């Protein structure tokens, strides 16, 4: 087919800092993206799943006979069939195991009970509706605080009585693990000695990433070659291939995982879901390709949820506002299986970043995880493994402390920031922050929004009985997992790879182990290579997502792509440049020591006119090499970062509140981010817009809620509320630049800062607006009713 778009590609050498338009866009704007459901293979069957209406029930009988009578239905499988293949349970990323199809009982509503394979999607759906399952309902555990009560029903009978889990001892059959960090005794002592102490309970509610493209998978087992090709909406194709090999026994080189264009991921597309396994098993059993594409209901009710942290914090400070110590206890609701997608050593993710941007001398954090009758998960939803919860906790708590001290929240923050001179800064909970200038970033934000005038306006309005609030969040993130000394998933170290091949004509193909879902890697990786090698950006193609061709890597989530694969890209390019330099010397007929890289060309030192371009060198690499040199110009680089990166930012939100209805209107929102070196400012700004919108959604709308029977009350987009253009505020963005001292190009990663940093700013603004009515905290999502309740209790009423 002829290319339908004019050549839109940005041209020429386009390195770091250039806001060039995205190379991946032309196909998307004409409707020629290639998402999973766009792939159709000859003879392909469709799969549909049968789901449990109950959240906790014994399965008495599954009758598939009616389903098998439907024309077009080829097969129905249940857990028993999977057991024959050893696939009725699979390991989770968190060291637990989970049912693929319900084995004897169901543990959460909508759990997968059977899989139906059919010639058409209609027949598959009819088949699923015709499977008759007989259940005996069991008592349901919805509240995580009740999960470990002595009389609580045992959820996981498969590990009943086994009091040691993957992360240490369990103290109840519904308890998963306890994890703590820091010094408890010293922290308690410091707290006891503090002049001022605040305590606050807060909940980061269960939410779901809900990308607009649901998850899906096509299993394609070629019985003639023994090769399994799996098309999957996955953010981590290589890890998936390894896991698939481990659970199926098929050698890794006989499995090819292809992750096509992904319609948003946000962490949802990291784990392995039962539907994927059933599609693959179906293909192996039936010898035909099998496609499964989730419905939205399946997406919201069965795939990886996020958050669900129930937190208690205590902070000590001096009377004049210097923080001294922090103690945190968190109860984590992990649902029916511990399928959290965290690095192996960190069952609570990177939650221990909860001291934030502040110089706490003493800190202690403890997390208990429990099982409940809810879908499994605990994915890093647009965040670096529980950083969002940590950031919200500290940023919200700093406002509680400011309120207690009757101090301006900006002033309190300025008083407690880690100072630039303290970097590298070892935190009380064990991290070494790489760099930052928190005061500078906050001051830029305060200036931009006109903080002093806003406070004046607020005082005037309050005198008139009008409600206006200002909320600040000066968060620090921890991203780029990670250094192999600390980070692995199922034992696989969390480095990432880049492969760069420069062709004779000066074009290049670049591949990475990451897999973008809208972040713009096809543009930014090309920019890094263009910067480092002086090649035209329009001659660089970026490919990700095919395990047959891309170098190994752990994938794209937790803002890790730029810190890991971005580093690999830069260092790989530099390695190529080293070889290129030798070829350049050969071409220039001088010694290698006389050649230098200036303005993206090789020049002879002191002879500015005498130079060769990378294009010329590339041609020579295949045609005219120095004697004895290996031909070609390419490399594969695996980058194991020495440390994590610590992006930060200062966000300020202004809200007005309707006294009649409790409606909160976000009037302004200024976001100043510092993500170190910026590769493409346009893309960075776009990431910030999107992340702020998800933060706004968390603060005011999004929640996966359950009733007492374990019914998921947010099972579709009419009840799981995503903001539209009309609700979404207008964002004002900006940045400061504090490069990472250890990253090859000084970049830190930005995709998640706004989701991590913004919720506290919104909530702080609302609480600030209501503070004079005695409000200290309101849990998210802040609905109109929660505000209304405060207003009416305070006697505020208005039409």
């Amino acid at each position, binding site marked *: 087919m002829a290319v339908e778009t004019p050549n839109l590609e940005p041209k020429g050498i386009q390195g770091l800092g250039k806001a060039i338009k995205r190379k991946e866009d032309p196909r998307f704007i004409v409707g020629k993206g290639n998402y999973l459901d766009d792939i159709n293979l000859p003879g392909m069957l469709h799969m549909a799943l049968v789901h449990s*209406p109950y959240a906790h029930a014994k399965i008495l009988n599954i009758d598939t006979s009616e389903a098998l009578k439907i024309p077009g239905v080829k097969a129905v499988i249940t857990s028993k069939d999977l057991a024959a293949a050893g696939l009725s349970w699979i390991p989770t990323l968190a060291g637990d195991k989970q049912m693929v199809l319900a084995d004897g009982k169901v543990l959460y509503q909508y759990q997968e009970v059977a899989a139906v394979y059919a010639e058409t999607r209609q027949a598959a759906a009819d088949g699923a509706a015709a499977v008759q399952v007989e259940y005996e309902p069991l008592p349901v555990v919805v509240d995580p605080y009740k999960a470990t009560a002595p009389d609580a029903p045992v959820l996981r009978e498969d590990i009943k009585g086994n009091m040691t889990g993957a992360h240490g001892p369990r103290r109840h059959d519904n308890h998963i693990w306890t994890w703590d960090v820091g010094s408890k005794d010293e922290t308690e002592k410091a707290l006891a000695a503090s002049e001022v102490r605040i305590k606050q309970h807060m909940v980061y509610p269960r939410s779901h990433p809900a990308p607009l493209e649901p998850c899906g998978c096509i299993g394609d087992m070629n019985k003639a070659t023994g090769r399994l090709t799996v098309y999957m909406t996955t953010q981590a194709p290589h890890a998936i291939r390894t896991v698939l090999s481990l659970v199926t026994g098929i050698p890794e080189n006989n499995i090819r995982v292809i992750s096509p264009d992904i319609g948003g991921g946000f962490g949802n597309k990291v784990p392995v879901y039962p539907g994927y396994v059933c599609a693959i098993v179906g293909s192996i059993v039936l010898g035909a390709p099998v496609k499964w594409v989730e419905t939205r209901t399946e997406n919201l*009710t069965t795939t990886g949820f996020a958050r669900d942290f129930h937190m208690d914090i205590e902070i000590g400070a001096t009377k004049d506002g210097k923080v001294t110590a922090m103690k945190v206890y968190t109860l984590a609701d992990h649902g029916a299986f511990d399928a959290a997608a965290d690095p192996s050593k960190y069952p609570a993710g990177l939650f221990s970043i909860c001291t934030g941007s502040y110089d706490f001398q003493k800190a202690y954090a403890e997390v208990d995880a429990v099982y409940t009758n809810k879908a499994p998960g605990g994915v890093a939803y647009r965040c670096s493994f529980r950083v969002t919860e940590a950031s919200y906790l500290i940023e919200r708590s700093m406002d509680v402390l400011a309120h207690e001290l009757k101090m301006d929240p900006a002033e309190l923050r300025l008083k407690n920031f880690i100072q630039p001179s303290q970097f590298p800064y070892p935190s009380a909970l064990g991290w070494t922050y790489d760099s930052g200038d928190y005061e500078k970033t906050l001051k830029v934000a305060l200036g931009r929004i006109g903080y002093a005038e806003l406070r004046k306006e607020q005082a005037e309005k309050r005198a008139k009985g009008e409600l206006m609030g200002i909320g600040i969040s000066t968060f620090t993130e921890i991203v780029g997992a990670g250094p192999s000394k600390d980070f692995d998933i199922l034992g696989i170290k969390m480095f990432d790879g880049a492969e760069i091949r420069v062709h004779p004509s000066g074009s290049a193909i670049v591949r990475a182990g990451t897999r973008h879902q809208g972040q713009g890697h096809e543009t930014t990786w090309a920019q890094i290579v263009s910067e480092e090698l002086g090649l035209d950006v329009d001659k660089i193609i970026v490919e990700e997502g095919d395990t047959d061709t891309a170098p190994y890597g752990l994938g794209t989530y937790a803002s890790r792509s730029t810190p890991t694969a971005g580093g690999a890209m830069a260092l790989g390019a530099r390695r190529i440049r080293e070889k290129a330099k030798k070829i350049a010397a050969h071409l220039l007929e001088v010694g290698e020591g006389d050649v230098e890289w200036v303005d993206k060309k090789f020049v002879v030192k002191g002879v500015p006119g005498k130079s060769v371009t990378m294009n010329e060198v590339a041609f020579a690499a295949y045609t005219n090499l120095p004697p004895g040199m290996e031909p070609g110009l390419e490399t594969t680089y695996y980058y194991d970062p020495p440390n994590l990166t610590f992006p930060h930012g200062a966000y300020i939100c202004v809200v007005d509140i309707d006294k009649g209805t409790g409606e909160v209107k976000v009037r302004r929102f200024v976001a100043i981010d510092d993500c170190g070196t910026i590769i493409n400012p346009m893309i960075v700004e776009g990431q910030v817009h999107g992340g702020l919108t998800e933060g706004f959604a968390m603060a005011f709308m999004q929640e996966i809620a359950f009733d007492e*029977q374990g019914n998921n009350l947010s099972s579709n987009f009419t009840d799981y509320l995503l903001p539209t253009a009309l609700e979404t505020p207008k964002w004002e963005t900006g940045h400061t630049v504090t490069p990472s001292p250890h990253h090859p190009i000084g970049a830190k990663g930005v995709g998640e800062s706004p989701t991590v940093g913004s919720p506290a700013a919104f909530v702080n603004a609302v609480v600030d607006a209501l503070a004079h009515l005695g409000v200290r905290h309101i849990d998210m999502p802040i609905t109109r009713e929660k505000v209304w309740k405060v207003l009416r209790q305070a006697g505020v009423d208005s039409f």
Partner: protein
Amino acid sequence: MKLEYSGQEKVQASAEKVWSFIQDPQKVASCLPDLKSVEFKDDKNMVATVGVAVGPVRGSFKFNIELDPRPEENKMMVRIRGGGLGSAVDLTASADISGQEDQSTLLDWNGVASVSGPAATVGGRVLDAQAKRLIETVFANMGKKMSEV
């Protein structure tokens, strides 16, 4: 979701007649609205398929119904478990039966239903008022038929 209902039905029939009526699965079944089919398992158990129309929700529900008369307590218990449209309903209803001086009988009933699945998660917004109407219809039908006996 959990739904709770209660009501009172005055039947123009003696308590004796009422008791004999409600212990007869055939007679009880005849009070179910839009009954499509019924299979009697024994003198206390039956399986009934009922058409349900709740606004946009339309389809068949299949229920296992167990009658549990407790004359000594003047109480009739009914347990219903079943479902349809991929959803499940568990309902326990009880009625206190008291004969009146005027040869009529008072049924003081209450029911607690637990609904799971799409009917609750998607249809929950519209379920409550309709389910109430359905239960009221059953008791109204009973009252009418008992009076006719």
